[in-house]
Protein backbone atom coordinates (compact mmCIF):
# COMPACT_ATOMS: atom_id res chain seq x y z
CA UNK A 1 0.00 0.00 0.00
CA UNK A 2 2.75 2.40 1.01
CA UNK A 3 4.79 1.47 -2.05
CA UNK A 4 1.76 1.94 -4.23
CA UNK A 5 1.05 5.41 -2.85
CA UNK A 6 4.69 6.41 -3.21
CA UNK A 7 4.79 5.21 -6.78
CA UNK A 8 1.68 7.19 -7.59
CA UNK A 9 3.10 10.32 -6.00
CA UNK A 10 6.40 9.88 -7.85
CA UNK A 11 4.58 9.27 -11.12
CA UNK A 12 2.34 12.27 -10.68
CA UNK A 13 5.31 14.49 -9.82
CA UNK A 14 7.13 13.34 -12.95
CA UNK A 15 3.97 13.74 -14.99
CA UNK A 16 3.37 17.30 -13.80
CA UNK A 17 6.94 18.14 -14.68
CA UNK A 18 6.45 16.81 -18.20
CA UNK A 19 3.17 18.66 -18.35
CA UNK A 20 4.77 22.05 -17.66
CA UNK A 21 7.37 21.46 -20.36
CA UNK A 22 4.91 20.06 -22.90
CA UNK A 23 2.44 22.88 -22.33
CA UNK A 24 5.24 25.35 -23.00
CA UNK A 25 6.23 23.56 -26.21
CA UNK A 26 2.57 23.29 -27.21
CA UNK A 27 1.92 27.00 -26.76
CA UNK A 28 4.99 27.82 -28.86
CA UNK A 29 4.15 25.19 -31.46
CA UNK A 30 0.54 26.26 -31.87
CA UNK A 31 1.21 29.97 -32.09
CA UNK A 32 4.44 30.19 -34.04
CA UNK A 33 4.66 26.73 -35.68
CA UNK A 34 8.15 26.31 -34.28
CA UNK A 35 9.22 22.92 -33.01
CA UNK A 36 11.44 24.13 -30.21
CA UNK A 37 14.28 21.71 -29.60
CA UNK A 38 16.06 24.19 -27.37
CA UNK A 39 13.29 23.84 -24.82
CA UNK A 40 15.26 21.34 -22.74
CA UNK A 41 18.12 23.79 -22.49
CA UNK A 42 15.76 26.55 -21.37
CA UNK A 43 14.56 24.15 -18.67
CA UNK A 44 18.14 23.54 -17.60
CA UNK A 45 18.90 27.26 -17.57
CA UNK A 46 15.79 27.77 -15.47
CA UNK A 47 17.17 25.33 -12.92
CA UNK A 48 20.50 27.17 -12.93
CA UNK A 49 18.76 30.53 -12.59
CA UNK A 50 16.84 29.20 -9.59
CA UNK A 51 20.04 27.84 -8.09
CA UNK A 52 21.91 31.13 -8.38
CA UNK A 53 19.07 33.33 -7.23
CA UNK A 54 18.29 31.01 -4.32
CA UNK A 55 21.84 30.45 -3.09
CA UNK A 56 23.46 33.79 -3.98
CA UNK A 57 20.75 36.28 -3.19
CA UNK A 58 19.05 34.26 -0.51
CA UNK A 59 15.57 34.92 -1.81
CA UNK A 60 12.84 32.57 -0.68
CA UNK A 61 11.61 29.59 -2.63
CA UNK A 62 8.62 31.29 -4.23
CA UNK A 63 10.54 34.45 -5.16
CA UNK A 64 13.40 32.44 -6.66
CA UNK A 65 10.91 30.41 -8.67
CA UNK A 66 9.30 33.57 -10.03
CA UNK A 67 12.74 34.97 -10.83
CA UNK A 68 13.65 31.78 -12.73
CA UNK A 69 10.42 31.98 -14.71
CA UNK A 70 10.89 35.64 -15.56
CA UNK A 71 14.54 35.24 -16.55
CA UNK A 72 13.86 32.33 -18.88
CA UNK A 73 10.82 34.13 -20.28
CA UNK A 74 13.03 37.09 -21.09
CA UNK A 75 15.60 34.77 -22.65
CA UNK A 76 12.85 33.23 -24.76
CA UNK A 77 11.72 36.65 -25.91
CA UNK A 78 15.27 37.57 -26.93
CA UNK A 79 15.75 34.26 -28.73
CA UNK A 80 12.51 34.70 -30.62
CA UNK A 81 13.33 38.24 -31.69
CA UNK A 82 16.95 37.42 -32.49
CA UNK A 83 16.56 34.16 -34.37
CA UNK A 84 13.10 32.89 -35.15
CA UNK A 85 11.51 36.19 -36.07
CA UNK A 86 14.09 36.73 -38.81
CA UNK A 87 13.52 33.26 -40.17
CA UNK A 88 9.76 33.55 -40.11
CA UNK A 89 9.82 36.93 -41.83
CA UNK A 90 12.00 35.49 -44.56
CA UNK A 91 9.80 32.44 -44.94
CA UNK A 92 6.49 34.24 -44.82
CA UNK A 93 5.36 34.22 -48.42
CA UNK A 94 4.35 31.15 -50.32
CA UNK A 95 6.92 28.80 -48.86
CA UNK A 96 5.79 25.17 -48.52
CA UNK A 97 4.97 24.33 -44.93
CA UNK A 98 7.69 21.69 -44.78
CA UNK A 99 10.39 24.27 -45.53
CA UNK A 100 9.21 26.60 -42.80
CA UNK A 101 8.96 23.77 -40.33
CA UNK A 102 12.37 22.40 -41.21
CA UNK A 103 14.08 25.78 -41.10
CA UNK A 104 12.75 26.77 -37.70
CA UNK A 105 13.28 23.28 -36.30
CA UNK A 106 16.88 23.26 -37.56
CA UNK A 107 17.46 26.71 -36.12
CA UNK A 108 16.23 25.49 -32.76
CA UNK A 109 18.55 22.48 -33.04
CA UNK A 110 21.41 24.88 -33.64
CA UNK A 111 20.30 26.91 -30.66
CA UNK A 112 20.09 23.75 -28.57
CA UNK A 113 23.69 22.79 -29.36
CA UNK A 114 24.96 26.31 -28.77
CA UNK A 115 23.13 26.86 -25.48
CA UNK A 116 24.07 23.42 -24.19
CA UNK A 117 27.77 23.73 -24.90
CA UNK A 118 27.90 27.35 -23.78
CA UNK A 119 26.39 26.21 -20.48
CA UNK A 120 28.98 23.44 -20.21
CA UNK A 121 31.80 25.93 -20.73
CA UNK A 122 30.32 28.49 -18.35
CA UNK A 123 29.20 26.34 -15.45
CA UNK A 124 31.74 23.53 -15.64
CA UNK A 125 30.72 19.95 -15.18
CA UNK A 126 30.33 19.84 -11.42
CA UNK A 127 26.96 18.89 -10.02
CA UNK A 128 25.13 21.42 -7.95
CA UNK A 129 22.71 20.57 -5.25
CA UNK A 130 20.61 22.86 -3.16
CA UNK A 131 20.10 21.85 0.44
CA UNK A 132 16.68 20.36 0.24
CA UNK A 133 13.97 22.91 0.88
CA UNK A 134 11.48 20.23 1.85
CA UNK A 135 13.33 17.34 3.44
CA UNK A 136 10.55 15.98 5.60
CA UNK A 137 8.28 13.09 4.99
CA UNK A 138 4.59 13.57 5.23
CA UNK A 139 2.83 10.85 7.16
CA UNK A 140 -0.82 10.21 6.51
CA UNK A 141 -2.06 7.35 8.60
CA UNK A 142 0.56 4.66 8.03
CA UNK A 143 1.73 5.95 4.67
CA UNK A 144 4.86 8.05 4.39
CA UNK A 145 5.12 10.32 1.38
CA UNK A 146 8.06 12.50 0.30
CA UNK A 147 6.96 16.09 0.80
CA UNK A 148 9.22 17.36 -1.98
CA UNK A 149 7.32 15.38 -4.60
CA UNK A 150 4.02 16.58 -3.21
CA UNK A 151 5.40 20.11 -3.46
CA UNK A 152 6.20 19.56 -7.15
CA UNK A 153 2.63 18.44 -7.74
CA UNK A 154 1.11 21.33 -5.80
CA UNK A 155 3.24 24.06 -7.37
CA UNK A 156 2.75 22.65 -10.87
CA UNK A 157 -0.99 22.56 -10.32
CA UNK A 158 -0.90 26.19 -9.19
CA UNK A 159 1.09 27.13 -12.31
CA UNK A 160 -1.33 25.25 -14.55
CA UNK A 161 -4.23 27.04 -12.93
CA UNK A 162 -2.49 30.36 -13.52
CA UNK A 163 -1.89 29.40 -17.12
CA UNK A 164 -5.52 28.45 -17.55
CA UNK A 165 -6.63 31.81 -16.17
CA UNK A 166 -4.15 33.57 -18.46
CA UNK A 167 -5.25 31.71 -21.56
CA UNK A 168 -9.00 31.65 -21.04
CA UNK A 169 -9.88 34.59 -18.80
CA UNK A 170 -7.72 37.45 -20.01
CA UNK A 171 -7.73 39.44 -23.20
CA UNK A 172 -4.14 38.61 -24.05
CA UNK A 173 -4.86 34.90 -23.64
CA UNK A 174 -7.77 35.20 -25.99
CA UNK A 175 -5.52 36.97 -28.48
CA UNK A 176 -2.89 34.23 -28.10
CA UNK A 177 -5.48 31.59 -28.88
CA UNK A 178 -6.76 33.58 -31.83
CA UNK A 179 -3.27 33.88 -33.26
CA UNK A 180 -2.63 30.15 -32.87
CA UNK A 181 -5.88 29.45 -34.66
CA UNK A 182 -5.16 31.66 -37.63
CA UNK A 183 -2.63 34.49 -37.52
CA UNK A 184 -3.91 36.21 -40.64
CA UNK A 185 -7.52 36.37 -39.54
CA UNK A 186 -6.43 37.45 -36.08
CA UNK A 187 -4.54 40.35 -37.62
CA UNK A 188 -7.79 41.48 -39.23
CA UNK A 189 -9.12 41.99 -35.72
CA UNK A 190 -6.29 44.35 -34.90
CA UNK A 191 -4.15 41.76 -33.14
CA UNK A 192 -0.48 42.05 -33.99
CA UNK A 193 0.73 38.49 -34.67
CA UNK A 194 4.37 39.39 -34.13
CA UNK A 195 3.69 40.77 -30.67
CA UNK A 196 1.61 37.74 -29.75
CA UNK A 197 4.26 35.38 -31.12
CA UNK A 198 6.73 37.09 -28.79
CA UNK A 199 4.36 36.70 -25.86
CA UNK A 200 3.69 33.04 -26.67
CA UNK A 201 7.37 32.27 -26.99
CA UNK A 202 8.14 34.04 -23.73
CA UNK A 203 5.29 32.26 -21.91
CA UNK A 204 6.38 28.89 -23.29
CA UNK A 205 10.00 29.39 -22.28
CA UNK A 206 8.92 30.80 -18.92
CA UNK A 207 7.00 27.59 -18.25
CA UNK A 208 10.13 25.55 -18.98
CA UNK A 209 12.10 27.80 -16.64
CA UNK A 210 9.50 27.34 -13.90
CA UNK A 211 9.71 23.58 -14.37
CA UNK A 212 13.49 23.80 -13.99
CA UNK A 213 13.07 25.94 -10.89
CA UNK A 214 10.69 23.43 -9.31
CA UNK A 215 13.06 20.56 -9.96
CA UNK A 216 16.19 22.32 -8.70
CA UNK A 217 15.58 21.96 -4.96
CA UNK A 218 14.47 18.32 -5.30
CA UNK A 219 16.95 16.75 -7.70
CA UNK A 220 20.48 17.94 -8.32
CA UNK A 221 21.09 20.61 -10.96
CA UNK A 222 23.11 19.06 -13.78
CA UNK A 223 24.02 20.10 -17.28
CA UNK A 224 22.45 17.16 -19.05
CA UNK A 225 19.08 17.48 -17.37
CA UNK A 226 17.82 19.33 -20.46
CA UNK A 227 18.78 16.83 -23.14
CA UNK A 228 17.37 13.99 -21.09
CA UNK A 229 13.92 15.45 -20.71
CA UNK A 230 13.35 16.93 -24.17
CA UNK A 231 12.95 13.58 -25.92
CA UNK A 232 10.47 12.34 -23.32
CA UNK A 233 8.61 15.63 -23.63
CA UNK A 234 8.26 15.16 -27.38
CA UNK A 235 7.01 11.65 -26.73
CA UNK A 236 4.38 12.98 -24.32
CA UNK A 237 3.42 15.58 -26.90
CA UNK A 238 2.64 13.03 -29.62
CA UNK A 239 1.03 10.60 -27.18
CA UNK A 240 -1.46 13.17 -25.93
CA UNK A 241 -2.03 14.67 -29.35
CA UNK A 242 -0.31 17.72 -30.73
CA UNK A 243 -2.22 20.91 -30.27
CA UNK A 244 -4.53 19.65 -27.57
CA UNK A 245 -4.01 20.93 -24.05
CA UNK A 246 -6.27 18.27 -22.55
CA UNK A 247 -4.33 15.64 -24.47
CA UNK A 248 -1.09 17.02 -23.05
CA UNK A 249 -2.47 16.63 -19.50
CA UNK A 250 -3.55 13.04 -20.11
CA UNK A 251 -0.36 12.13 -21.95
CA UNK A 252 1.93 13.66 -19.34
CA UNK A 253 0.26 12.04 -16.33
CA UNK A 254 -0.03 8.69 -18.09
CA UNK A 255 3.65 8.77 -19.07
CA UNK A 256 4.71 9.81 -15.58
CA UNK A 257 2.78 6.98 -13.95
CA UNK A 258 3.97 4.43 -16.52
CA UNK A 259 7.59 5.40 -15.98
CA UNK A 260 7.27 5.39 -12.23
CA UNK A 261 5.67 1.94 -12.11
CA UNK A 262 7.87 0.67 -14.93
CA UNK A 263 11.12 1.48 -13.11
CA UNK A 264 9.85 -0.26 -10.00
CA UNK A 265 8.73 -3.50 -11.62
CA UNK A 266 10.68 -4.03 -14.84
CA UNK A 267 13.69 -1.77 -14.43
CA UNK A 268 15.28 -0.22 -17.48
CA UNK A 269 12.79 -1.89 -19.78
CA UNK A 270 10.16 0.50 -18.45
CA UNK A 271 11.20 3.26 -20.81
CA UNK A 272 11.09 0.89 -23.75
CA UNK A 273 7.62 -0.21 -22.67
CA UNK A 274 6.49 3.42 -22.73
CA UNK A 275 7.83 3.80 -26.25
CA UNK A 276 5.98 0.69 -27.37
CA UNK A 277 2.72 1.83 -25.77
CA UNK A 278 3.08 5.17 -27.57
CA UNK A 279 3.59 3.39 -30.87
CA UNK A 280 0.59 1.13 -30.33
CA UNK A 281 -1.60 4.12 -29.45
CA UNK A 282 -0.44 5.98 -32.52
CA UNK A 283 -1.06 3.04 -34.80
CA UNK A 284 -4.72 3.00 -33.87
CA UNK A 285 -5.18 6.69 -33.17
CA UNK A 286 -2.79 8.50 -35.52
CA UNK A 287 -3.41 11.87 -33.88
CA UNK A 288 -2.57 10.75 -30.37
CA UNK A 289 -5.10 10.24 -27.59
CA UNK A 290 -7.03 13.45 -28.08
CA UNK A 291 -5.51 15.13 -31.11
CA UNK A 292 -6.70 15.08 -34.67
CA UNK A 293 -4.65 13.28 -37.33
CA UNK A 294 -2.76 15.89 -39.30
CA UNK A 295 -2.19 15.50 -42.98
Amino acid at each position, binding site marked *: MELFAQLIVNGLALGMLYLLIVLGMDIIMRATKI*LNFAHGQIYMLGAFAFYFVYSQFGLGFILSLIAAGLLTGLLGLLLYLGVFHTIQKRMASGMPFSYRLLMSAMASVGLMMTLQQAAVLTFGSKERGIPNVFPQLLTIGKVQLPLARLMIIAVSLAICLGLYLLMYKTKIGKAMRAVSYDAEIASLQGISPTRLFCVSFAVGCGLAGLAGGIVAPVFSVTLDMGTGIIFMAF*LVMVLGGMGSYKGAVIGAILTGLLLSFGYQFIGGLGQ*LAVFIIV*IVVLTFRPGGILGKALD
Partner: protein
Amino acid sequence: MVKHLTKAREKGGRSKHSLIGVAIVVLILIPFVIESPYTIHLFIMAFVAVILGMTFTMLFSSGQISLGGAAPFAIGAYASALLTLNFKISFWLALPAATIITGILALGIGWVLCRHAGAAFVVLTMVFGLVIVQTVGQVEEFGGWGGLTSIPRPDTIANIEFVGKTPYYYLILFVLLIVILIYNAFYTSRFGRILRAIKLSPHLAQSLGINLFRYRLMAFVVAAIPAGIVGSFYAHYARAIVPDTFGGWASIRIQLYPVLGGLDYYILGPAVGAIIMTFVPEYLRITKEVEPIITGLLLLLIIVFFPGGVLGVIFRSGRAMSLSGGINKTRSWLIKKISG
Protein backbone atom coordinates in the same frame (compact mmCIF):
# COMPACT_ATOMS: atom_id res chain seq x y z
CA MET B 1 22.47 18.13 -59.28
CA VAL B 2 19.32 16.85 -60.84
CA LYS B 3 18.41 20.38 -61.59
CA HIS B 4 21.84 20.87 -63.03
CA LEU B 5 21.77 17.77 -65.10
CA THR B 6 18.54 18.84 -66.72
CA LYS B 7 19.77 22.38 -67.09
CA ALA B 8 22.96 21.13 -68.63
CA ARG B 9 20.96 19.13 -71.11
CA GLU B 10 18.86 22.14 -72.00
CA LYS B 11 21.86 24.30 -72.61
CA GLY B 12 23.60 21.50 -74.43
CA GLY B 13 26.40 21.81 -71.89
CA ARG B 14 28.60 18.75 -72.17
CA SER B 15 30.92 20.38 -69.65
CA LYS B 16 28.72 19.25 -66.74
CA HIS B 17 29.01 15.63 -67.80
CA SER B 18 32.74 15.83 -68.25
CA LEU B 19 32.97 17.53 -64.86
CA ILE B 20 31.20 14.58 -63.28
CA GLY B 21 33.58 12.24 -65.10
CA VAL B 22 36.60 14.14 -63.81
CA ALA B 23 35.19 14.07 -60.28
CA ILE B 24 34.80 10.29 -60.42
CA VAL B 25 38.35 9.81 -61.76
CA VAL B 26 39.72 12.06 -59.01
CA LEU B 27 37.84 10.09 -56.36
CA ILE B 28 39.21 6.82 -57.76
CA LEU B 29 42.77 8.18 -57.76
CA ILE B 30 42.68 9.54 -54.21
CA PRO B 31 44.16 6.45 -52.46
CA PHE B 32 47.11 6.53 -54.91
CA VAL B 33 47.87 10.14 -54.13
CA ILE B 34 47.17 10.34 -50.43
CA GLU B 35 49.30 8.12 -48.24
CA SER B 36 48.01 8.96 -44.79
CA PRO B 37 45.57 6.25 -43.65
CA TYR B 38 43.89 8.80 -41.42
CA THR B 39 42.94 10.98 -44.38
CA ILE B 40 41.55 7.94 -46.18
CA HIS B 41 39.59 7.16 -43.03
CA LEU B 42 38.17 10.68 -43.11
CA PHE B 43 37.18 10.18 -46.73
CA ILE B 44 35.42 6.92 -45.87
CA MET B 45 33.51 8.57 -43.03
CA ALA B 46 32.67 11.49 -45.30
CA PHE B 47 31.20 9.12 -47.91
CA VAL B 48 29.14 7.38 -45.23
CA ALA B 49 27.90 10.81 -44.17
CA VAL B 50 27.13 11.77 -47.78
CA ILE B 51 24.92 8.72 -48.28
CA LEU B 52 23.13 9.29 -44.98
CA GLY B 53 22.59 12.93 -45.91
CA MET B 54 21.16 11.89 -49.27
CA THR B 55 18.64 9.63 -47.57
CA PHE B 56 17.42 12.62 -45.59
CA THR B 57 17.04 14.61 -48.79
CA MET B 58 15.11 11.77 -50.43
CA LEU B 59 12.55 11.86 -47.66
CA PHE B 60 12.56 15.64 -47.65
CA SER B 61 11.83 15.73 -51.36
CA SER B 62 8.38 14.46 -50.40
CA GLY B 63 8.06 17.18 -47.77
CA GLN B 64 8.67 14.84 -44.84
CA ILE B 65 11.33 15.77 -42.33
CA SER B 66 12.99 12.89 -40.52
CA LEU B 67 14.80 13.28 -37.25
CA GLY B 68 15.49 9.56 -37.04
CA GLY B 69 17.97 9.27 -39.88
CA ALA B 70 20.27 7.17 -37.76
CA ALA B 71 17.60 4.50 -37.17
CA PRO B 72 17.91 2.61 -40.50
CA PHE B 73 21.67 3.09 -40.21
CA ALA B 74 21.52 1.33 -36.84
CA ILE B 75 19.23 -1.41 -38.14
CA GLY B 76 21.61 -2.16 -41.01
CA ALA B 77 24.64 -2.16 -38.75
CA TYR B 78 23.11 -4.38 -36.07
CA ALA B 79 21.47 -6.78 -38.54
CA SER B 80 24.72 -7.30 -40.38
CA ALA B 81 26.84 -7.59 -37.26
CA LEU B 82 24.46 -10.03 -35.56
CA LEU B 83 24.17 -12.18 -38.69
CA THR B 84 27.92 -12.52 -39.08
CA LEU B 85 28.56 -13.02 -35.35
CA ASN B 86 25.77 -15.50 -34.62
CA PHE B 87 25.46 -17.44 -37.85
CA LYS B 88 29.04 -17.05 -39.08
CA ILE B 89 27.89 -16.08 -42.54
CA SER B 90 30.08 -14.03 -44.82
CA PHE B 91 29.90 -10.25 -45.03
CA TRP B 92 28.98 -10.54 -48.69
CA LEU B 93 25.80 -12.38 -47.71
CA ALA B 94 25.16 -10.31 -44.61
CA LEU B 95 25.23 -7.05 -46.57
CA PRO B 96 22.27 -7.88 -48.82
CA ALA B 97 20.51 -9.64 -45.93
CA ALA B 98 20.90 -6.55 -43.75
CA THR B 99 19.66 -4.41 -46.62
CA ILE B 100 16.55 -6.55 -46.99
CA ILE B 101 15.94 -6.55 -43.24
CA THR B 102 16.24 -2.76 -43.17
CA GLY B 103 13.83 -2.51 -46.08
CA ILE B 104 11.23 -4.76 -44.45
CA LEU B 105 11.48 -3.00 -41.09
CA ALA B 106 11.26 0.37 -42.84
CA LEU B 107 8.11 -0.81 -44.58
CA GLY B 108 6.57 -1.78 -41.25
CA ILE B 109 7.68 1.35 -39.41
CA GLY B 110 6.72 3.52 -42.36
CA TRP B 111 3.28 1.93 -42.40
CA VAL B 112 2.74 3.48 -38.96
CA LEU B 113 4.63 6.73 -39.48
CA CYS B 114 3.65 7.77 -42.99
CA ARG B 115 0.07 8.42 -41.91
CA HIS B 116 1.46 11.52 -40.27
CA ALA B 117 2.95 14.63 -41.76
CA GLY B 118 4.53 17.84 -40.60
CA ALA B 119 5.54 18.22 -36.98
CA ALA B 120 4.00 14.91 -35.89
CA PHE B 121 6.15 13.04 -38.39
CA VAL B 122 9.27 14.84 -37.19
CA VAL B 123 8.61 13.89 -33.60
CA LEU B 124 7.62 10.32 -34.45
CA THR B 125 10.77 9.65 -36.46
CA MET B 126 12.74 10.96 -33.52
CA VAL B 127 10.85 8.65 -31.17
CA PHE B 128 11.54 5.69 -33.44
CA GLY B 129 15.22 6.56 -33.53
CA LEU B 130 15.22 6.42 -29.75
CA VAL B 131 13.23 3.17 -29.69
CA ILE B 132 15.89 1.50 -31.83
CA VAL B 133 18.70 2.75 -29.60
CA GLN B 134 16.83 1.72 -26.44
CA THR B 135 16.05 -1.71 -27.88
CA VAL B 136 19.59 -2.58 -28.81
CA GLY B 137 20.82 -1.07 -25.55
CA GLN B 138 18.40 -2.79 -23.20
CA VAL B 139 18.26 -6.24 -24.76
CA GLU B 140 21.37 -8.25 -23.95
CA GLU B 141 20.99 -10.43 -27.07
CA PHE B 142 21.63 -7.31 -29.14
CA GLY B 143 24.81 -6.52 -27.25
CA GLY B 144 23.44 -4.19 -24.58
CA TRP B 145 24.89 -0.75 -23.89
CA GLY B 146 28.40 -2.16 -24.28
CA GLY B 147 27.69 -2.83 -27.93
CA LEU B 148 29.01 -5.53 -30.24
CA THR B 149 32.73 -6.06 -30.66
CA SER B 150 35.07 -8.13 -32.83
CA ILE B 151 32.79 -7.99 -35.84
CA PRO B 152 34.65 -9.88 -38.60
CA ARG B 153 36.22 -8.13 -41.57
CA PRO B 154 34.70 -8.76 -44.97
CA ASP B 155 36.06 -12.02 -46.46
CA THR B 156 38.59 -11.91 -49.21
CA ILE B 157 36.82 -11.59 -52.51
CA ALA B 158 38.35 -11.69 -55.99
CA ASN B 159 41.83 -11.62 -54.42
CA ILE B 160 41.07 -8.38 -52.59
CA GLU B 161 42.01 -8.67 -48.97
CA PHE B 162 40.29 -6.28 -46.60
CA VAL B 163 43.32 -5.05 -44.71
CA GLY B 164 44.16 -1.38 -44.47
CA LYS B 165 41.83 1.35 -45.52
CA THR B 166 42.03 1.27 -49.31
CA PRO B 167 39.67 -1.68 -50.06
CA TYR B 168 37.07 -0.17 -47.75
CA TYR B 169 37.50 3.13 -49.55
CA TYR B 170 36.73 1.58 -52.93
CA LEU B 171 33.82 -0.40 -51.54
CA ILE B 172 32.12 2.66 -50.06
CA LEU B 173 32.94 4.72 -53.16
CA PHE B 174 31.24 2.05 -55.27
CA VAL B 175 28.18 2.07 -52.98
CA LEU B 176 28.12 5.88 -53.10
CA LEU B 177 28.18 6.00 -56.89
CA ILE B 178 25.47 3.37 -57.18
CA VAL B 179 23.27 5.21 -54.70
CA ILE B 180 23.79 8.48 -56.57
CA LEU B 181 22.86 6.80 -59.86
CA ILE B 182 19.72 5.23 -58.44
CA TYR B 183 18.64 8.36 -56.59
CA ASN B 184 19.25 10.47 -59.67
CA ALA B 185 17.04 8.10 -61.64
CA PHE B 186 14.37 8.40 -58.96
CA TYR B 187 14.51 12.19 -58.87
CA THR B 188 14.25 12.57 -62.62
CA SER B 189 11.44 10.03 -62.96
CA ARG B 190 7.71 10.46 -62.54
CA PHE B 191 8.14 9.19 -58.97
CA GLY B 192 10.43 12.09 -58.11
CA ARG B 193 8.05 14.57 -59.67
CA ILE B 194 5.15 13.18 -57.69
CA LEU B 195 7.16 13.53 -54.48
CA ARG B 196 7.92 17.16 -55.29
CA ALA B 197 4.26 17.74 -56.06
CA ILE B 198 3.37 16.35 -52.63
CA LYS B 199 5.90 18.67 -51.05
CA LEU B 200 4.53 21.67 -52.92
CA SER B 201 0.98 21.03 -51.85
CA PRO B 202 -0.29 17.76 -50.39
CA HIS B 203 -3.91 18.76 -50.95
CA LEU B 204 -3.41 19.67 -54.59
CA ALA B 205 -1.51 16.45 -55.21
CA GLN B 206 -4.23 14.46 -53.52
CA SER B 207 -6.87 16.11 -55.68
CA LEU B 208 -4.99 14.84 -58.72
CA GLY B 209 -5.40 11.29 -57.54
CA ILE B 210 -1.98 10.87 -55.98
CA ASN B 211 -2.16 8.52 -53.02
CA LEU B 212 -0.23 10.49 -50.39
CA PHE B 213 0.25 7.60 -48.02
CA ARG B 214 1.57 5.26 -50.69
CA TYR B 215 4.10 7.68 -52.12
CA ARG B 216 5.25 8.86 -48.72
CA LEU B 217 5.73 5.24 -47.71
CA MET B 218 7.67 4.55 -50.91
CA ALA B 219 9.91 7.55 -50.25
CA PHE B 220 10.38 6.33 -46.68
CA VAL B 221 11.54 2.89 -47.80
CA VAL B 222 13.68 4.23 -50.64
CA ALA B 223 15.34 6.54 -48.11
CA ALA B 224 15.89 3.79 -45.55
CA ILE B 225 17.53 1.17 -47.77
CA PRO B 226 20.82 2.97 -48.58
CA ALA B 227 21.16 3.85 -44.90
CA GLY B 228 20.89 0.12 -44.16
CA ILE B 229 23.63 -0.66 -46.67
CA VAL B 230 25.93 1.96 -45.17
CA GLY B 231 25.09 0.66 -41.71
CA SER B 232 26.22 -2.81 -42.69
CA PHE B 233 29.39 -1.37 -44.21
CA TYR B 234 30.08 0.73 -41.13
CA ALA B 235 29.67 -2.20 -38.75
CA HIS B 236 32.31 -4.21 -40.60
CA TYR B 237 34.56 -1.23 -41.10
CA ALA B 238 34.59 0.02 -37.50
CA ARG B 239 34.33 -3.63 -36.31
CA ALA B 240 32.69 -2.51 -33.08
CA ILE B 241 29.39 -0.74 -32.66
CA VAL B 242 27.77 0.78 -29.59
CA PRO B 243 24.18 2.04 -29.33
CA ASP B 244 25.31 5.59 -28.61
CA THR B 245 26.73 5.90 -32.13
CA PHE B 246 23.16 5.90 -33.42
CA GLY B 247 21.52 8.20 -30.87
CA GLY B 248 19.69 11.48 -31.29
CA TRP B 249 22.84 13.46 -32.03
CA ALA B 250 23.70 11.22 -34.96
CA SER B 251 20.30 11.91 -36.51
CA ILE B 252 20.70 15.62 -35.98
CA ARG B 253 24.09 15.58 -37.69
CA ILE B 254 22.58 13.70 -40.62
CA GLN B 255 20.07 16.44 -41.32
CA LEU B 256 22.75 19.07 -40.85
CA TYR B 257 24.56 17.95 -44.00
CA PRO B 258 21.84 18.77 -46.56
CA VAL B 259 20.88 22.00 -44.80
CA LEU B 260 24.49 23.11 -44.80
CA GLY B 261 25.08 22.10 -48.40
CA GLY B 262 21.84 23.44 -49.78
CA LEU B 263 18.40 21.87 -49.78
CA ASP B 264 17.69 22.71 -53.40
CA TYR B 265 20.46 20.40 -54.57
CA TYR B 266 19.29 16.89 -53.99
CA ILE B 267 22.58 15.09 -54.46
CA LEU B 268 25.29 17.72 -54.45
CA GLY B 269 23.84 19.44 -51.37
CA PRO B 270 24.32 16.62 -48.86
CA ALA B 271 27.66 15.78 -50.48
CA VAL B 272 29.07 19.26 -50.00
CA GLY B 273 27.61 19.56 -46.51
CA ALA B 274 28.93 16.18 -45.36
CA ILE B 275 32.42 16.81 -46.73
CA ILE B 276 32.59 20.21 -45.06
CA MET B 277 31.33 18.80 -41.77
CA THR B 278 33.85 15.96 -41.84
CA PHE B 279 36.99 17.74 -42.91
CA VAL B 280 36.72 21.29 -41.62
CA PRO B 281 36.58 20.49 -37.88
CA GLU B 282 39.50 18.07 -38.35
CA TYR B 283 41.79 20.50 -40.09
CA LEU B 284 40.89 23.52 -38.00
CA ARG B 285 41.77 21.35 -35.00
CA ILE B 286 38.56 22.30 -33.26
CA THR B 287 38.36 20.54 -29.95
CA LYS B 288 35.41 18.44 -28.93
CA GLU B 289 34.42 21.03 -26.35
CA VAL B 290 33.91 23.96 -28.66
CA GLU B 291 32.76 21.97 -31.69
CA PRO B 292 29.03 21.91 -30.81
CA ILE B 293 29.03 25.69 -30.30
CA ILE B 294 30.64 26.28 -33.67
CA THR B 295 28.37 23.77 -35.42
CA GLY B 296 25.31 25.21 -33.72
CA LEU B 297 26.18 28.81 -34.51
CA LEU B 298 27.08 27.85 -38.08
CA LEU B 299 23.70 26.19 -38.44
CA LEU B 300 21.93 29.26 -37.04
CA LEU B 301 23.86 31.68 -39.26
CA ILE B 302 23.24 29.62 -42.39
CA ILE B 303 19.52 29.34 -41.72
CA VAL B 304 19.09 32.99 -40.81
CA PHE B 305 21.27 34.53 -43.51
CA PHE B 306 21.84 31.94 -46.26
CA PRO B 307 18.86 29.59 -46.30
CA GLY B 308 20.04 28.27 -49.65
CA GLY B 309 23.09 26.68 -48.03
CA VAL B 310 26.63 26.73 -49.31
CA LEU B 311 25.64 25.78 -52.85
CA GLY B 312 22.87 28.36 -52.81
CA VAL B 313 25.49 31.01 -52.10
CA ILE B 314 27.85 29.69 -54.77
CA PHE B 315 25.20 29.44 -57.47
CA ARG B 316 23.65 32.73 -56.40
CA SER B 317 20.22 31.33 -55.80
CA GLY B 318 20.40 31.92 -52.06
CA ARG B 319 17.73 34.61 -52.34
CA ALA B 320 15.22 33.45 -49.71
CA MET B 321 15.80 29.83 -50.59
CA SER B 322 15.03 30.11 -54.25
CA LEU B 323 12.79 27.28 -55.23
CA SER B 324 12.44 28.71 -58.69
CA GLY B 325 13.79 25.72 -60.58
CA GLY B 326 12.26 22.69 -58.93
CA ILE B 327 9.04 24.18 -57.64
CA ASN B 328 8.16 26.11 -60.79
CA LYS B 329 8.73 23.06 -62.92
CA THR B 330 6.55 21.01 -60.60
CA ARG B 331 3.91 23.72 -60.57
CA SER B 332 3.68 23.84 -64.37
CA TRP B 333 3.55 20.04 -64.41
CA LEU B 334 0.65 20.13 -61.96
CA ILE B 335 -1.16 22.80 -63.99
CA LYS B 336 -0.68 20.76 -67.14
CA LYS B 337 -2.19 17.74 -65.39
CA ILE B 338 -5.16 19.77 -64.18
CA SER B 339 -5.89 21.31 -67.54
CA GLY B 340 -5.91 18.00 -69.25
